[in-house]
């Protein structure tokens, strides 16, 4: 994993090279607009976005010896966390950490059931 700037938000896009990392400063409108355009393109391709609590999941191992990743589905990684809509079902919204700098999101290709 490359070292990321903690003051910048990050979007990791899963792709054939492993993943592509994009970073931006939420306080820079030009950078946000650039990322938003990429997010729009990804949405059109069927990608969905997940906000990851960057803390390694070790802290939740007390709940079960195998741990559980703190992650929730979001609509737009560039959106202000305060205005992010709460998902209708599932997710870890009740345990979501307060908004902080350096949010980390992952863009995931659409999944479909295959043949067993």
């Amino acid at each position, binding site marked *: *994993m490359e070292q990321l700037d903690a003051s910048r938000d990050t979007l*990791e896009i*899963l*792709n*054939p*090279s*492993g*993943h592509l990392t994009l970073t931006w400063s939420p306080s820079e409108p030009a950078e946000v607009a650039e990322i938003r355009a990429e997010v729009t393109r990804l949405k059109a391709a069927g990608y969905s976005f*997940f906000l*990851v609590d960057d803390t*390694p*999941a*070790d802290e*939740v*191992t007390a*709940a*079960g*010896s*195998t*741990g*559980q*990743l*703190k*992650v*929730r*589905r979001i609509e737009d990684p560039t959106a202000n966390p305060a205005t992010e809509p709460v*998902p209708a*079902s*599932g*997710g*870890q919204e009740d345990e979501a950490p307060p908004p902080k700098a350096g949010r980390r999101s*992952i863009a*995931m*290709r*659409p*999944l*479909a*059931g*295959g*043949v*067993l």
Partner: protein
Amino acid sequence: MTPQELADLAMQLVNGQMTVETLLARTDLTDADKRDVRALAIYEIRFRVEGHLRRQRRPAQRRALGLLRSLLTSEQRAMLSHARYFHARGSAGGLYRLCVETANVQRIERHGSRYYGVQSFCIHGPEDGCPPADETISQLLLLSADEPAFLATANAHDLGAMLWNGEWRRELAEARRQREDQEGAA
């Protein structure tokens, strides 16, 4: 023709030292030999192509594994290094085994000191050359954020309950003991 001679002919075909027309025109080979040579050649070509694709994907798989590890607990990372799979809990509490080499997912249950597969799931992204570890990341994200959505999307296959049935295991052990006794007596 010996198997080695057939294999040599297949290699000539693969390496372009002989054409299929030349092979078919040979009168010293039976039809069965010609079929075997062609089958061996196809097998060799597939083996080479798959090896080439694996080598091409290796850096991508490494990058994807780096991202995956950053999402795991130290216990899960250790399991991944040791066994090439790890266990993870879904948002609804289910326990799953995710394999990074095959991108397979199984729901597992613990019985005694062992974990047993209960259901196998087939769920994957489009065929666009993404490494298997990327598939695993996607599966982990969906399971952790919205396990019901994962279950609704994936095709599930029941693996059966026989393996963790204690009575069945005892019967199996007893049958083995009896067979060993019989073999010892004989």
